[in-house]
């Protein structure tokens, strides 16, 4: 069967860690936040780096919680926790991450720089910080999830 697995997500980059694996290849471990606080989605994104420019940029974007556009596919990591329970985490294996600027955001930045006269360089607009990501450790048992409450207002259609 022809298989398809495609994800396209734009959200705020809230974590960026560059790791080097044994083979010498570099991988960026990112966390992207999507949506408003009440219904936020936090998802881990792995990206193999072949571009040194992006490697330098990602931590800066993460510092400002800037927007990124992620293209990739869904994957699942599995491991055993210290207490012996099986854990799993759904993440994105990205083949492309691009820095995505928001028009509205730039406008806000301008406004803030004019109102705060002291700053010669437009200080990064302090937007409401996204809530810290919760402990993402989905238990991999077949029962959970289906009973979870869903807020009707969050449903997009």
């Amino acid at each position, binding site marked *: *069967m022809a298989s398809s697995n*495609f994800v396209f*997500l734009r959200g705020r980059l809230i974590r960026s860690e560059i790791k080097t694996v044994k083979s010498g290849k570099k991988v960026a471990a990112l966390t992207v936040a999507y949506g408003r606080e009440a*219904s936020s989605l936090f998802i881990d994104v792995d990206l193999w780096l072949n571009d040194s420019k992006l490697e330098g940029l990602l931590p800066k974007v993460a510092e400002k919680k800037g927007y990124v556009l992620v293209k990739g596919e869904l994957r699942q990591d599995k491991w055993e926790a210290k207490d012996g329970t099986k854990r799993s985490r759904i993440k994105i294996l990205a083949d492309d991450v691009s820095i995505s600027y928001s028009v509205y955001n730039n406008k806000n930045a301008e406004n803030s720089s004019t109102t705060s006269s002291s700053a010669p360089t437009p200080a990064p607009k302090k937007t409401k910080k996204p809530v810290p990501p919760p402990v993402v450790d989905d238990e991999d048992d077949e029962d959970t999830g289906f009973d979870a409450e869903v807020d009707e207002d969050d449903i997009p259609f």
Partner: protein
Amino acid sequence: MVNQVTLSGQVVTEISLRQSKAGVPVSDFRIKHKTRRMPNPLFIDVEVWGAEAERVAEYVTRGDRIIVAKGELRCDMWEKDGQKRSKIKITAGRIILVRDMPYKSEDHESGEAEETSF
């Protein structure tokens, strides 16, 4: 806001159909996605709302292969033993049922040995 998912897979649970508090039909189930490139299969919950949920409950059964289209990644959060838990799932706008064209049994048997001659 950009949040798009398309994912093919096999349904590994029964299809449940329930009503939301507002009376909207909701269907949920879990799918398994596996390709040769992937170290482990991906299991993810899928949720469908509205008329499509009723269609899914009527036509899709466990074991069927589907494509989850017009999907959106979502996160369910809850507390368990005072710890915050979260689960990533897909809310889908459309489910496409994938069926194999059946082989005639004689074609299938002879076909495999002689296929190379074509």
